[in-house]
């Protein structure tokens, strides 16, 4: 069992409703443990419990931890019976790229199980973590997209497809059995506990590939510090509680937060390659010059990468899609969350990066110490 690292104090936030008892599903994960931490910090009187597949990481004191599989209805029922939450925040998300069956099992079956069990257990507010990719068809830029964009007819991959199914299920279940729901569409997450973006970009640095750039770097990209995404979950739960506090539930209108999906980012798109360069700068590295490949050449190289991968029978690391992705715009309009949830990022990108890189360095240090301890034995 390992405790979560210590965090500096959070910026002030005045709750608009008190959360009394919250169950965070996936609360030991990258996003989940930040949600747990912020509930502890902003709602110190709330009873906080966690249901996760593995509960041996990212633990905080004064939180009840329950191990369990979210596709196991009996276990989910049991945990709900023990913890009696008024709000459930479901942050579970498999890594994109896992097989289709896993995506379906977690995003569709798991979501249905938790959703139905929560309704049955009399939970009042249900906040579900979605992804901005539910509206991404994988074929073109995403420019200033907002929540009015339709789900694509042909989803890009099984992750996006199953996330969209899950999201629809959650939103359609709004007000059924007296439970209010909403979904938060996240994008480009990084921060403490990050296993994808920060390690990926630091890996590029370790391999000495920082000189390369594909495309002209005029494309804007939305990244989100994990603390801000977690904060949006707290706000969403609070807003659902405000609705519930009315003596009789106001009718559902477009201006009530329940049954709605919200895009959540840092609200400050930056030029794509500026982000890795800012990360490398924090490590004291500055590429002496940049070799810029035009996008078309990059696509050809990506095809080469796929070919080699196919020859070797391995998942290629460098693909045409990755090349195009890094040359596309991908940013969103988050006005809906700003207006309806009162969302505003608590940390800007630079502050988030500083925290994330510091965490990563401490992780490396811990790994080294563990190795040294092993050798010593």
């Amino acid at each position: 069992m390992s405790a979560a690292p210590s965090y500096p104090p959070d910026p002030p936030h005045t709750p608009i409703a008190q959360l009394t008892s919250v169950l965070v599903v996936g609360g030991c994960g990258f996003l989940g443990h930040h949600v747990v931490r912020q509930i502890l910090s902003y709602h110190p009187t709330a009873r906080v419990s966690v249901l996760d597949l593995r509960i041996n990481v990212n633990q905080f004191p004064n939180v009840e931890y329950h191990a369990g599989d979210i596709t196991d209805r009996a276990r989910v029922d049991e945990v709900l019976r023990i913890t009696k939450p008024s709000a459930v925040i479901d942050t579970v998300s498999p890594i994109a790229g896992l097989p289709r069956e896993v995506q379906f099992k977690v995003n569709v079956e798991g979501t249905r199980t938790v959703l139905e069990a929560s309704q049955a257990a009399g939970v009042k507010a249900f906040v579900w973590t979605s992804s901005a990719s539910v509206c991404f068809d994988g074929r073109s830029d995403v420019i200033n997209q907002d929540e009015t964009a339709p789900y694509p007819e042909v989803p890009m991959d099984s992750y996006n497809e199953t996330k969209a199914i899950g999201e629809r299920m959650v939103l359609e279940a709004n007000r059924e059995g007296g439970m209010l729901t909403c979904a938060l569409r996240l994008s480009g997450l990084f921060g403490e506990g990050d296993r994808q973006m920060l390690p990926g970009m630091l890996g590029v640095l370790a391999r000495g590939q920082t000189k390369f750039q594909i495309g002209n770097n005029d494309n804007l990209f939305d990244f989100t510090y994990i603390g801000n995404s977690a904060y949006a979950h707290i706000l969403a739960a609070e807003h659902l509680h405000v609705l519930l506090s009315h003596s009789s539930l106001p009718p559902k209108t477009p201006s009530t937060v329940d049954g709605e999906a919200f895009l959540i980012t840092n609200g400050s798109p930056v030029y794509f390659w500026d982000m890795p360069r800012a990360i490398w700068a924090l490590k004291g590295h500055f590429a002496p010059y940049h070799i810029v490949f035009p996008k078309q050449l990059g696509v050809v190289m990506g095809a080469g990468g796929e070919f080699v991968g196919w020859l070797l029978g391995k998942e290629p690391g460098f693909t045409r899609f990755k090349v195009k992705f890094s040359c596309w715009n991908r940013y969103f309009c988050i006005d809906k969350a700003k207006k309806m949830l009162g969302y505003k990022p608590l940390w800007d990108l630079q502050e988030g990066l500083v925290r994330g890189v510091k965490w990563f360095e401490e992780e490396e240090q811990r790994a080294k110490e563990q190795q040294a301890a092993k050798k010593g034995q």
Partner: protein
Amino acid sequence: MKTSELIHYAFHPNQLRAMVQWKVWHNPLNQRDPTTEAPTLKRCFEFLDLTSRSFSAVIQELCPELCVSVSLFYLVLRGLDTIEDDMTIPIETKEPLLRDFDKILDKEGWKFNGNGPKEKDRQLLVEFDVVIAEFAKIPPEHQVIIKDITRKMGNGMADYANNTAHQLNGVNTIEDYDLYCHYVAGLVGEGLTRLFVVTEKANKILLERDDLSNSMGLFLQKTNIIRDYREDLEDKRGFWPREIWSKHVKEYKDLADRKNEEAALNCISEMCLDSLRHAEDVLFYLAGIREQSVFNFCAIPQVMAIATIALIFRNKDVFQRNVKIPKGEACELLLSVGNLRMVCDTFKKYIRIIHKKNNPKDPNYLRISAACGKVEQWIENVFPRDQPAPRAPAGPQLSPEEEALQKKEMMMLSATIFGTMLVMSGLMIFGAWMAGARFDLAFKEVAKHGLSLFPSRKDNAPQGHQEL
């Protein structure tokens, strides 16, 4: 024309073209008719030409309802400024003049010759009676607005003149900086907005959003403050807030020391970052203007400002001399102001230049990137670019087996192409080897120096030639 300018225009023929176009083709939207003007008004316009280098032309093209009022507004504030600026006037004389300047506007025949002989606009105050005479003739509601702003600005200036801490240390925090700029420029924005709304040339909403008109003034004023670092330093003045420069250097004047070049560049980029936070307000404000001559009057200084920011951003020359946008570029900008969309395009163009000059070594690197992104997103919000309509699914959806088959076919095709290339190059290498090529030496070279795309000069040194 200087040689340096000739070289500049040789490389920027578009700017040269813009200069010619502006001189030859530009038709003013509105033109004064000096034959109908009273001698006092003519004298006022002469003063306008003398005192405002950049604003005179755009003011004189304003629609007839506003042209005279805005000109007089400008001259009144210029008169106030000439009193404030003059360090030879003792504070006991200066303070009441500043505080009561709005009342002076009612005093027929008032003039002032207490300015020092070196004060460049002293003649305006010597003949200020012409301004007062004309002021009495403009619509009363215009007079009220101009007097109100004059009173506020005069009192603000008097407060600063009295404030010894400000005199000694300059501007302290960013908040002070904003407040100072509000007094000297934001208030002008407020006054002009009220004149525009009263003549129905602008949307009433602009009156409620005084933060927008304030930003109009601040964006211009801050640009000038950054650009004029050297000139102000030589006059022993400085308006950059300590809160910003103290992060980079110990003393304000150290910025000009070439030893501190990197710190100075980081400092100027933080100053530009602070200015950029007003850019969206500026565009928002311009969206509220309803009349073409007023739009040009408002937009021209703003596009000049964003072009100037792009020029001075991380530009070390600012600390040594006066940096200005070339005349040709200015003409290009004058031609580029037609409507909000064109102004947005111009803003985007210069935002991209700032983005390209941004440097990861700068502590505000990512924040500058985000500030640029924010302006781009604002523009995208108002003028969404044409996006391809969501494409209909290409044919029927394929089953995983069919997909795999298709992929296999494509891979086989690539394999054939790559295979052919491989055989061909193999043949060529074999041919070269038969002809006596020394691959062993080539490999050794690679092993020694690595496969670098840009070999350093050392690697290209003569010994390489010997082996060839």
